[in-house]
């Protein structure tokens, strides 16, 4: 992988992958919180930018430009499944 491609990969992993990961985390957190839905929305959303910042740092700290993408499917997918399982069930039924 050329250096430029590596940088591009990390940038995309940070900004796009980071957004996707954050989205999954927040959605899952909202689903998991035992509070009233309105409260859950706010409480789950407020830490979004901490998560996103961490995702950006990971994308540039990870040992390779490909590794930068690992959290997106590995963490993001299960969290998204957990967050949206009612909607998924509706679709499948």
């Amino acid at each position: 992988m050329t250096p430029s491609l590596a940088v591009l990969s990390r940038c995309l992993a940070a900004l796009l992958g980071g957004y996707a990961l954050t989205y999954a985390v927040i959605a899952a957190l909202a689903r998991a919180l035992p509070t009233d839905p309105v409260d859950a929305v706010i409480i789950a959303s407020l830490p979004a930018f901490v998560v996103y910042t961490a995702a950006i740092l990971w994308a540039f700290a990870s040992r390779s430009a490909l590794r930068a993408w690992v959290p997106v499917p590995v963490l993001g997918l299960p969290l998204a499944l957990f967050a949206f399982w009612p909607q998924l069930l509706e679709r499948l039924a």
Partner: protein
Amino acid sequence: MKQTFTQAMAWLHTWAGLIIGWLLFAVFLTGTLAVFDAEIDHWMQPEIHSTPVSQLDAAQRALSYLGDHHADAKSWGISLPTERSPGLTVSTGDRRSGTRVELDPASGAVIQPRETAGGSFFFRFHFTLNLPRTFGVWLVGGLALVMLATLVSGIIIHKKFFKEFFTFRPGKGQRSWLDFHNASAVLMLPFHFMIAYTGLVIFLLMYMPAAVDSLFKGDTQAYAKAAGNARQETPRGDGGRGQPALPANLTDLAPVFAEAEQRMGPLAGLTVLNPGTSAMRLQVRPVLGNRIELSKGLNMEFDGVSGKLLKDVTPSRASLLTQKVMAGLHFAQFGGYPLRWLYFVCGLLSCAMIASGLVLFCVKRRRKLADKPVHVQRWHRVAEVLNITSIAGLSIACVGLLWANRLLPVALEQRAGHETTLFFVLWTTSLVHASLLPTLQAWRQQLASAAVLCLLLPVLGLFGPGHDLQRLYLELAAVGIGLLLLVAIRRIDRKVAQAGSAAVNAKVLGAKS
């Protein structure tokens, strides 16, 4: 990229900082100016006088004007004179499309203040960069987010965080720039984190709708309704139950204002719904900033005929309160003028922090580049030019807006548009100027231009109409900033002199050997 964690963070901090730096400086400078947006509005409309009139008297004059001219309107809006905005404005119809008229609070006569972009230009520019609203909000949000990453990476790479807490060694070139960048970043760290994070929280659910998507299936209306934020319906214009409304007189405002002030603090305005009828309602709203929590949309509703309280302020639930407090910390409308000035100073220091980072990038590379290939030198030149344009050029444009406000003819059509056009013309001129001249010379000339415009602002004010104490404070603040710019110019001169004498010494030594 096989490097250590710290090296990776250093790379991230440098390049992320550079790429967002130019626009981020613009966001911070206009945001700092927007702290005083109402005061800048006031300065840019010198036709409006600040008179010591009570809000009750002003309201009565507004009501009699509205009664004479707009008796049939469905709703009347009145913006009362406040500490920051001494004007009296009346409006009918929709906030955006209805008519707005400026009245003299003392006499009730109509005033025609000059149409101006006002301090609101800086406010809007701050969160949209003058781009179409949604696109601009997302771009500025992106800048804020990357700023958070830049802050954290900066902390990670700053090894001597506590040892060098108070360290500043001037006159040592690159070392001094790094010292200043470190000092301003570290000492203001709470402010930086707070302002970036709370800025993002203002548009929280727009940037991150994940929770609404998972819990409310993305139905924002359903969420708003559940949160109690649903738009209030205007009460029916009839007497209820389909009966026609009878004409009725407005209740005495004094007890209404007293009760509203007691519950909400100083008042900003009121809306009269269905004026002149038995279905009249009064919505009284407070000045933003009687508490940290952002109180936009907060109001108390009274019956227009009897003065009875119909809808009291409801305390927000804890989660929404948290979000509103965070938004309020960003909007900085609380705590009166002392806190406003504190935010202003912190904002300026943040601008200095960003600027020092951008300058440090170029100073670091200036020396090393003599033997690098041409295309690398060209990119460095681009960075130098963008530095000058985004820092000095934007400063010229901002103070230039105030000059345009006083120099453009009052009766000019689309005056506000012309003011902003001049703002962008100045900024573009700065870019061209910076591209054509050597770096230090361009810095010196542009900073000097900004300084002159700032220092001479009181002259503009004193020779124009409508001078008062509030406008004088603004001019004095501009003079203060102008003096700081002079200090910066002096240091550039000293550096040029040093470089000049160093070159002479080198020649002399060369000649001797």
